[in-house]
């Protein structure tokens, strides 16, 4: 069964450094998302991406964050200058397009990247 993959599984970085989290969505999906889960807290929406542009973003997704689909398979989340409070599990998700006849609301999640900022 197709699945969303994420790399790395765990990333440790120093405060102020840039990190790039990578995701490979399911191949025929056209909507992509990033969520984060701070330890012990709920999963929070960061951003959705469709047709090579951001379709929606949360208040958390400020100027230090960016997303990109650099090629036909990868979807990345960049954090420009990490802060201690960016330590969290970051989940990538994808969903199908409306034209596929399937509902785009069902999102498939990757296993997550645990980001630790020291």
């Amino acid at each position, binding site marked *: 069964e197709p699945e969303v993959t994420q790399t790395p599984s765990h990333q440790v970085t120093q405060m102020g450094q840039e990190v790039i989290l990578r995701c490979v969505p399911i191949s025929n999906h056209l909507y992509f998302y990033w969520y984060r889960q701070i330890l012990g807290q709920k999963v929070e929406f960061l951003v959705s991406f469709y047709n090579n542009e951001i379709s929606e973003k949360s208040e958390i997704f400020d100027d230090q964050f960016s997303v990109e689909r650099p090629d036909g398979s990868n979807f990345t989340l960049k954090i420009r200058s990490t802060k201690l409070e960016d330590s969290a599990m970051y989940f990538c998700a994808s969903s199908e397009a409306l034209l596929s006849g399937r509902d*785009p609301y069902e999102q498939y999640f990757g296993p997550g990247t645990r980001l630790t900022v020291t």
Partner: protein
Amino acid sequence: AQSVTQPDIHITVSEGASLELRCNYSYGATPYLFWYVQSPGQGLQLLLKYFSGDTLVQGIKGFEAEFKRSQSSFNLRKPSVHWSDAAEYFCAVSTPGTYKYIFGTGTRLKVLA
């Protein structure tokens, strides 16, 4: 603003006992509703979803959920819990016009042998 409440942070049940996890949402119309499960160190796996139609939906692993519009609830149930069901369960909603999910705070299920 939309919100999701899972009133129970922790629930402990004995193996073989029945289970009900509560989820309430706040939204003016009927949202799209989901239950996900997260095992330790794992990602989020979809258990079931409700978009419209029959208010009792069946999911994987023997789970079901019932949508009750009058109570703004979408409670998850399982008639007989297995030790492997120990995990964290998240209720989520999405609404027409936006594809983002809003998650509840989760309920951690512990199963006693």
